[in-house]
């Protein structure tokens, strides 16, 4: 009787282990993040009430960056156009793809006298580890932490979601500090590079 019970326990173990087999991730993901990405599943595309519109003056902010130096939006006033890329959170599927693309497109930003600021609501150590995974040398653009007070800048820009992450959003701001392009994107999708390229070109008009 006891032996039979042991046998059943073994069978249960095997079945339990089979259930726990790793589940394959979506096709076409980068091998750089193999096994390190948390998949939140499909999310509500938009979960905030944007307050800004094209033509508004971009709200100023100062945030700590992963290099240790704080970065302020007003630093660039009169000097360069600014693209702000908010992504919802580190170590999530679409975000982990988006910035590595921008990282090889420095020329696109340079040609349009633009700099890029990447912002998430994560803390500095998390952002440091995550961006090192994108490139051993780190990214060419400042990566800023909107961690504390939590999501304050995302909130100012009207894109803080109800779970404390930000929307996946792009803001293009000209040298005068005026917002010229807004793309508060479906959080589940990556914004097309050509749309941002066109917005940058339109700054010349």
């Amino acid at each position, binding site marked *: 009787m006891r*032996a039979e019970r*042991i*046998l059943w326990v*073994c*069978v249960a*173990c*095997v079945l*339990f*282990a*089979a259930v*726990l*087999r*790793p589940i*394959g*991730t*979506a*096709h*076409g*993901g*980068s*091998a*750089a993040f*193999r096994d390190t990405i948390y998949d939140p599943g499909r999310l509500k595309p938009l979960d905030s009430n944007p307050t800004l519109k094209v033509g508004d003056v971009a709200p100023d902010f100062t945030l700590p960056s992963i290099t240790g130096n704080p970065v302020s939006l007003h630093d660039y006033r009169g000097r360069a156009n600014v693209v702000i890329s908010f992504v919802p959170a580190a170590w999530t599927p679409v975000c982990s*793809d*988006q910035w*590595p*693309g921008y*990282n*090889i*497109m420095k020329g*696109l930003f340079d040609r349009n006298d633009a700099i890029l600021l990447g912002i998430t609501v994560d803390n500095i150590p998390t952002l440091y580890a995550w961006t090192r*995974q*994108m*490139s051993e040398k780190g990214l060419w653009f400042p990566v800023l932490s909107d961690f504390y007070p939590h999501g304050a800048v995302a909130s100012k820009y009207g894109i803080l979601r109800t779970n404390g992450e930000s929307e996946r959003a792009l803001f293009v701001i000209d040298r005068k500090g005026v917002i010229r392009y807004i793309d508060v994107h479906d959080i589940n999708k*990556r914004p*097309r*590079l*050509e749309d941002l*390229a066109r917005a940058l070109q339109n700054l010349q008009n």
Partner: protein
Amino acid sequence: MSIKKLIVLVCAAAALYACFQLFPGGTAALAQTTQLDYSDRRMPLPAFELPIPQDRAEREYLGLSDKGTFKVGDIKSQIVIIEIFSFYCPICQVHAPLVHEVYEKIKARADLKEKIRMIGIAATNTAFEARSFKETYNIPFPVFSDEEGEIALLLGVKYTPTFIGVKVDGKGGQEQFYFLPKVFTNPTRFIEDIMKTSGLE
């Protein structure tokens, strides 16, 4: 053998199996000494169409003359190496020079340059993104956009980059013989593996 011993044996086997299931990495490490790092399973390459390149040199490279679409099996060579990559994939970016080296090594070998063609398929990238990658890394072979990732899905690609070797007859026949779901480190060895696995050597 007593019933007790039999039970112990079954339990041990079950526990071992459970461990392997729970720690697949460990299983792979154990199997590494006997397994290839690529799959040499032969199967028909699933059918999909690509647009014939507008660039004349690229059309000539693939041996295609008409407008419209083509299948991998229409390419005039004996082997086609497909790289599934993404503009947004950091490993594809870092690895691009080695892929370039493969192209140059094939071109430099009189016995291979007419036998092998290379193409890139940019999974989940728009045409603009695929072109940006090609320009950034000076990719010498044609690349195509797979914007919705449908081709990657069809080919069973989970991660980029993935390299697929296909035997072709230039008349639509296409047989997959090689599948490497990761980067290679040695371009010469990669070409040797492709040739050896194809059976054309």
